């Protein structure tokens, strides 16, 4: 591993611990900027403004104290792109060990529970947890995306199969818009609004959800290269913010901060629209390791 990316295992492990610390306690700049933008729009003295003020205060306290922004440190999701020749099993061992240490340091809550026995795994090392997705790529460096996905917002994620009779949603862009708006209404404030939607169009059920989750890696101010999807993203943000749901569902004009959509091909019989809801506590960070240099973003 050392020869390939220039870090020994111990240093790589401490870099992963630092990645978890930053992700859990420091909200990304693009997310903070977006919350501030909406904070300025809510009328002073309303419950919505007061909720956004508390959110901003919380962001600062978490950063200053290196403490979790939200106590639900969620599903710990690593997406890893690595150069050829790096042993995946070794990487996985390092990550699991880093997650255990990060839990002992209180950057993560002991959050993994056996579904049948209800027993907690106190180091966050369980079956399928942390979630680690490894992909070999042709670059000469390691790139890691980490998302901490809380349960409140995960629970309001949903998947539609088009056409949808109740919503009169056909297999086209308008149909996609309709079901996505429905997802926002169904979520109300329960996903810890204001939120961000990741939308995956097409694929099978598993691919669709995966694609929608991958959209959480995009910066909130980027622009979709596909003009149809760019329009979908803008339309949804605009319309969702007229629904009056507001922060926490208290009412107000800040329901969604952003929408990010992507598509993949489908088979003729299936047309899935998969919606991932991310809460305002949008914990997402990147780490790259190249020639022994570690960079965080």
């Amino acid at each position, binding site marked *: 591993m050392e020869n390939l990316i220039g870090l020994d295992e111990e240093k790589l492990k401490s870099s992963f611990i630092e990645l978890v610390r930053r992700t859990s306690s420091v909200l990304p700049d693009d997310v903070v900027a977006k919350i501030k933008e909406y904070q300025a729009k809510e009328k002073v003295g309303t*419950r919505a403004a007061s909720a956004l003020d508390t959110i901003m205060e919380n962001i600062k*306290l978490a950063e200053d104290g290196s403490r*979790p922004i939200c*106590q*639900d440190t969620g599903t710990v999701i690593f997406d890893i792109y690595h150069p050829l020749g790096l042993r995946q099993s070794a990487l996985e061992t390092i990550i699991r060990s880093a997650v255990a240490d990060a839990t002992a340091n209180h950057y993560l*809550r002991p959050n993994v529970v056996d579904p049948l026995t209800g027993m907690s795994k106190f180091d966050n090392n369980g079956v399928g947890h942390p979630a680690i997705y490894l992909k070999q790529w042709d670059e000469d460096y390691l790139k890691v995306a980490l998302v901490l996905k809380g349960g409140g917002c995960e629970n309001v994620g949903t998947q539609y199969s088009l056409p949808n009779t109740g919503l009169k949603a056909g297999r086209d862009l308008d149909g996609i818009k309709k079901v996505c708006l*429905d997802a926002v209404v169904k979520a109300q*404030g329960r996903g810890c609004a204001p939120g961000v939607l990741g939308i995956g169009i097409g694929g099978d059920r598993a691919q669709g959800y995966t694609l929608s989750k991958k959209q959480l890696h995009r910066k909130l101010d980027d622009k979709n290269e596909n003009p149809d999807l760019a329009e979908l993203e803008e339309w949804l943000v605009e319309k969702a913010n007229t629904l009056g749901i*507001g922060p926490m569902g208290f009412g107000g004009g800040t329901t969604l901060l952003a929408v990010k959509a992507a598509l993949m091909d489908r088979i003729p019989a299936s047309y899935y629209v998969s919606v991932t809801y991310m809460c305002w506590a949008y914990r997402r960070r990147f780490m790259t390791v190249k020639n022994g240099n570690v960079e965080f973003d």
Partner: protein
Amino acid sequence: MIKLALPTTEDEIRKLKVGDEVLLSGVIVTARDTAHKYMVEKRPDDIRDMLNGTVIYHCGPVMKQDDDGSWEVVAAGPTTSIREEIYQADVMEEYKVRGVIGKGGMGPKTLAGLKKTGAVYFHAIGGASQVLAQAVVRVPGVLKLEEFGVPEAFWSFEVKDFPVVVTMDSHGESLHDVIGAASEEKMKEILGSM
């Protein structure tokens, strides 16, 4: 802003209305999924005094034990309340609880329970684990820690000026119902114009 000391009485709680911003002070008790199932199925007696007249907090905190054995709250925001819908009204009645703090609101069974028992639903800001942890001044105790784990245990938190909003009151009003219905109407209007 209304200041409310805990434990409290039915009279005090009945004065609260949807939309009131309240600062809570006194001892509150965390309970979430496992704890609610346990309270309804086992009806334990050792928690009665602790819960009488106070408020249950739907929260699974991050906790740190200091060298002297005392506990410190690292992070403690609310969790989604609706999962306790099947239990909440029964728990409030059985244990004389005067309110619950959570997020996302609850359903008709709880709303009816609030009216019957004389209790309210307080909404805290979801995700605001640091602002809310700062309002906890002391951790007087914990029950079922070994069995349930840190997030699911019954933690007693002594709080000072813990900020919440009443979103469901003891008179049958729910802010969640109002906003839910209005947003659905608005959506129908948007979809109808497409």
